């Protein structure tokens, strides 16, 4: 990966595409912006694209179909932009193999944070950029469904997770019994460097513990490693 990751921005709406491309460029990305799926396919074939930011609703071939094409032809991560808030649309998007989705109107800073998380995850994970959409992780009576981004207990009760908590838990379950430092976790989940007084990871860990630990004051699942970081003390089965 070069210093300047190359993004492909696909949105039929010029009023979004142009200022967003400018903003992303200003923030250190190379950006190729196109207005339809056909041109996007040409650019994908012609350039080494690191990540695609894709609008779902487009005239002609829509974003979901293009997303499926990208998924079938390679491992380029995709972030979907959607103007619809229906839950089903998000889940369909994730099941189509998108790595993340952002609801319009979005904060451009938030979008950049998400892009960085995914690029970082791709960089750290090597060949495996992201969990396949059908992948689920079973651990200690819990199932984390990567496709639907839901955490379900053995009774089928789902536990809502914020994006940050989901990313954190995914980082832990995909590396069971490994010690992950705060810096690593921050890097993987939020795509940024830690500052010395950063409590973000500790806060999220404590929130996660409240949700998944039988007793969150005596954690047995997400353990603190003295001087190091955190580890998931459980056997994880991929399903």
């Amino acid at each position: 990966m070069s210093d300047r990751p190359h993004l492909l921005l696909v949105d039929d709406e010029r009023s979004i595409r142009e200022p967003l491309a400018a903003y992303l460029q200003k923030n250190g990305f190379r950006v190729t912006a196109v207005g339809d799926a056909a041109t996007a396919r040409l650019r994908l074939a012609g350039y080494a694209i690191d990540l695609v930011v894709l609008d779902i609703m487009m005239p002609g071939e829509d974003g979901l179909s293009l997303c499926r094409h990208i998924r079938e032809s390679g491992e380029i991560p995709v972030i979907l932009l959607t103007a619809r808030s229906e839950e089903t649309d998000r889940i369909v998007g994730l099941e189509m193999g998108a790595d993340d989705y952002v609801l319009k109107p979005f904060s451009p800073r938030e979008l950049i944070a998400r892009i960085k998380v995914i690029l970082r995850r791709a960089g750290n994970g090597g060949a495996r950029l992201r969990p396949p959409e059908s992948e689920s992780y079973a651990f200690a009576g819990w199932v984390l469904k990567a496709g639907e981004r839901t955490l379900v207990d053995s009774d089928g009760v789902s536990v809502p997770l914020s994006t940050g908590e989901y990313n954190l838990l995914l980082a832990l379950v995909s590396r069971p019994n490994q010690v992950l430092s705060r810096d690593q976790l921050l890097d993987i989940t939020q795509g940024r460097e830690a500052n010395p007084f950063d409590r973000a990871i500790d806060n999220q860990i404590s929130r996660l513990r409240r949700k998944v630990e039988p007793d969150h004051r005596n954690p047995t699942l997400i353990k603190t490693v003295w001087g190091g970081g955190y580890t998931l003390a459980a056997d994880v089965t991929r399903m």
Partner: protein
Amino acid sequence: MVKLLDKLWPRNMSGQIALLVGIALLVAQSINFGLLVRARDRQELIQVAAPAIARLADAIERDAAGAPMLRERGPWLLRRGVVVEGKSRVTPGMPRREDIAERARVALHDLRVPVLRVEAAQAAGSAVRLPGHDRIAQLRDTIDPERRNNRPYLIVAAEVSPGRWVNLITRLPSRDPRFLGWLFLQTMILYFVVLAAVLWSVRRVARPLRELTGAVEGFRSAESAALVPESGPSDVRRLVSAYNGMRTRIAGLLDEKDRMLGAIGHDLRTPLASLRVRAEGMEDEAERDRMAATIEEMNRTLDDILSLARLGRPSEPETRVDLSALLDQVVDDFQALGNTVSLADMPRTTVTIRPTLVTRALRNLIDNAVKYGGSAEVSVAQADKGVAVLIDDNGPGIPEDKIEAMFEPFARLEQSRSRETGGTGLGLALAKAIALQHGGRLTLANRPEGGLRATLWLPARGQA
């Protein structure tokens, strides 16, 4: 009395028709019955009176000729029951038969038999003593006096000359006791046949009507409402088919509405997104944040409007969700924006809900508490076979008489729709609609210690 009638009066069509047909049959049968009895009486009159009068005429003529009435050869039957005496056998206590007397007068006049007076009466056997009663009859009477005594007799008396009466005593045919029985049976057969036919045809109409009523009552959304099978008479079929057509049209309208709402959402969010991206390029950081907040506000309002409009056809399935984790997430979002929102410790609680909608309702309630009360304390209580989420604030509360009005869409406490306090007044209406959609309820109450408490109660369905 009226109340009782009101109670007995059947409400449904089959009951009313059956009752009306029953009453009509009863009236018709009563008239028939009267006519039949009259006809029978006339028949009896002719059958009995004619021979009696003939015999009376014969007896009068014989009497006039000086022939003895008894112990005389000749057609015995003709002379039987004739008594010539100085008085009329008709006594004042006997029921008169003026009809027979009149017939006798006319007949005697026609036969040119001169009489002074004619009387006729009916009498029970016990009141009549018969001369020349035949032996067998006498024997039968001694064996069974009851029978004789109860038998009706007819007495026709004619005064042929002053103080000389010719009395004719004859038996009236006893009425067939089975006559009434037959009439009753006949009525019953009529009732049975007619009512069976009526009830069958009414049922044929009532069943599709009942199904139609059920379908209309159960009409929640166009997909869930099944088509009603067309059956019954053609006019009912037409009604059912008209309903089915309407259902299809409503489904079309709702689809149209969904498409339109989707398009509105898309068409408004796209320029908002464009604004939001451009706002990021602004130099003045404070101005940029204010703009971002306004755009976010517009987007929230848009979401509320779209959610409220779509609530009848939720796209999200019901899921069993850990309410504590859901609340934690909502509260965390508020805390992240620097609001004073706290969540009390609670045991793990499972509810069956549409998470996105309930999240929206909770967010609106907490948002109100923060906006109007400065802070929010969120806690959960088990109540009334369900779970109550309590959202308390320390604001000024709401005057009691204004509380109900707060649930109206676009209602806000202050009359000026100033954007200082923000909100369109959709938040509570939507939260309440979401609560109702989940079979729950939303109430607002002023707390005794000050501030307002919003209670979102959800039923404990499928609680683990």
